[in-house]
């Protein structure tokens, strides 16, 4: 029997997609158009001026340095924590989840004053350097890092994989490095990406500590050169996109930490 059903064009679905595209694309297009205008018409003056400003490169360098250090330390802290919670202390999972969200309940100024006092006692040398921002960034990115890693770990049958590795003679270090971490690559890359975007977009804390990171520089430029601020914003968005694409490509090339699916039958 032939299929006589009429194929309907999903107009409703396309309308929703189009609406979303417009909603997200329109501000970016407007931003791009604005950044390429000047009193004389179309121009790349805003981009040229930024590229020639040594302070811009200093800010980019500082933000990227902070992003790399924060990401490294954050992963060093969070990967073992998530593994520990899942394998050894599952009863503390909800507590750890709550702790990761705590930072959103504390106003930045309170966080700065409170944590500065603590840092002054623990590592006073840190206070005179931009790296004082790193502990704050780590705390700010807790929620994102934890969730990205937690989702990756949940997708693995951690206990069985660990038991299997141990039964084959692997010690704890080899089990983690050869079995667990390779299967968490996608989650780790995702957590790294989220941490980097948090650092590159953070303004309040760096402003309070008087460090000229990229967002602070962008705000400063915005007070005097509107097109310049738009150009910077566009470049930041494009950089984030490139980063996201890079993470996707790398995780796909690495195999993406595939999880075994249950298929019965020979």
């Amino acid at each position, binding site marked *: 029997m032939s299929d006589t059903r009429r194929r309907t064009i999903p107009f409703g679905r396309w309308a929703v997609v189009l609406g979303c595209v417009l909603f997200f694309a329109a501000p970016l297009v407007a931003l791009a158009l604005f950044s390429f205008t000047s009193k004389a018409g179309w121009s790349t003056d805003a981009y040229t001026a930024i590229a020639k400003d040594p302070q811009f490169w200093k800010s980019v360098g500082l933000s990227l340095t902070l992003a790399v250090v924060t990401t490294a330390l954050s992963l060093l802290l969070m990967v073992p924590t998530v593994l520990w919670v899942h394998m050894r202390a599952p009863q503390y999972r909800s507590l750890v989840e709550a702790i990761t969200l705590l930072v959103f309940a504390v106003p930045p100024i309170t966080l700065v004053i409170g944590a500065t006092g603590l840092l002054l006692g623990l590592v006073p040398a840190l206070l005179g350097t931009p790296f004082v921002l790193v502990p704050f960034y780590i705390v700010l990115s807790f929620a994102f890092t934890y969730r990205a890693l937690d989702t990756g770990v949940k997708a*693995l*049958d951690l206990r*069985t*994989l660990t*038991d*299997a*590795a*141990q*039964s*084959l*003679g*692997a*010690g704890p270090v*080899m089990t983690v490095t*050869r*079995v667990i971490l*390779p*299967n968490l690559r996608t989650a780790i890359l995702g957590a790294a990406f989220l941490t980097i975007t948090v650092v590159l977009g953070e303004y309040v804390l760096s402003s309070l500590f008087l460090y000229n990171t990229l967002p602070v520089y962008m705000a400063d430029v915005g007070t005097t050169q509107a097109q310049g601020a738009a150009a910077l914003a566009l470049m930041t968005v494009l950089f984030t996109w490139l980063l996201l694409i890079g993470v996707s490509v790398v995780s796909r090339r690495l*195999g993406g*930490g*595939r*999880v*075994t*699916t*249950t*298929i*019965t*039958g*020979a």
Partner: protein
Amino acid sequence: MTTVRVENIRKTYGDFVALEGLTLDMAEGEFVSFLGPSGCGKTTALRIVAGFEFADSGSVLIDGTAIDTMAPNRRNMGMVFQNYSLFPNMTALENVAFGLRVRKQPAEKVRSRAQEMLDLVGLSGKERNFPHQMSGGQQQRVALARALAIEPRVLLLDEPLSALDAKVRVSLRNEIRAIQKEFGISTIFVTHDQEEALTISDRVAVLSQGRLEQFGSPEEIYRRPASAFVAGFVGESNRFTGTVGAGGIVDIGGSAVRLDAAAAHPAGTEVEVLVRPESTVLRDPGEGDLPATIISQQFQGARTRFLVHPDYQSDPTATVISDVSGTRYDELAAGIAVGIEIDAKSALVTAK
């Protein structure tokens, strides 16, 4: 070849007693199944042997040496898990080679041994497949090859077939048994499937609520169950209640039934009598031990299953299952009166 002794193991989780006084000996190259319902302690016992759990008291001895404090990665025991436990980031060949690489064996030897094991489980040509590219049966074959590759002293199988479909389950269990016999590895197989345990084991340990109910050959477990639990859990049984009289007679619903096992109980003891369906025979009315009426019959090929209602039972839903064979039963149909004869030698009699 290795002997395993589990000695008086006790394991608790808070107030819950998972294992109590578990003791059993395994001979070299023996295939032993731990059989029991969920929560009976069979997997806990296996994990204690593997070293993933520690007993509160008692010991596990391999070739006479206690290994209770030895880390699991030093016990040299191959294990296949219920959940597919292949490393998702490795191919089939890499999975099988993992244990050999851990032992820092030469690369060429690792490769040839891993390939040999994959060939053994019938997966030649699947070396480069990742776990997600294989079926459940294939994954468990790789897991078996991986466990065997390290030449383990003991092979531990934790319900490795339970996630597979029926056809694959039967073929893989036969393969496991054949490979185990070929290698002569002492093997512990955990299962809740009685047919599986009876089919492939040298001996079966039946556990219930953390205790060992019976440890014996499949024939012993089936034909001479040591307790009402074993009789009920392994195979089907008809249950009767009665009172022991003199000379090995049990009064069941007013009928005097001679049962050999009744002699072990003093007269007047209230007992439960368990009888396998194939240990009953249907006789003409007035003959046999218990008058009854046929409710229904099911032709099952080599035998016929009758559901009969004992006349002494006031509950109309009470039935006795009788599996008989032979053409003389062809005439029997629903509503016909018969006499149930119970095989005096095989019935189990336990005090209530």
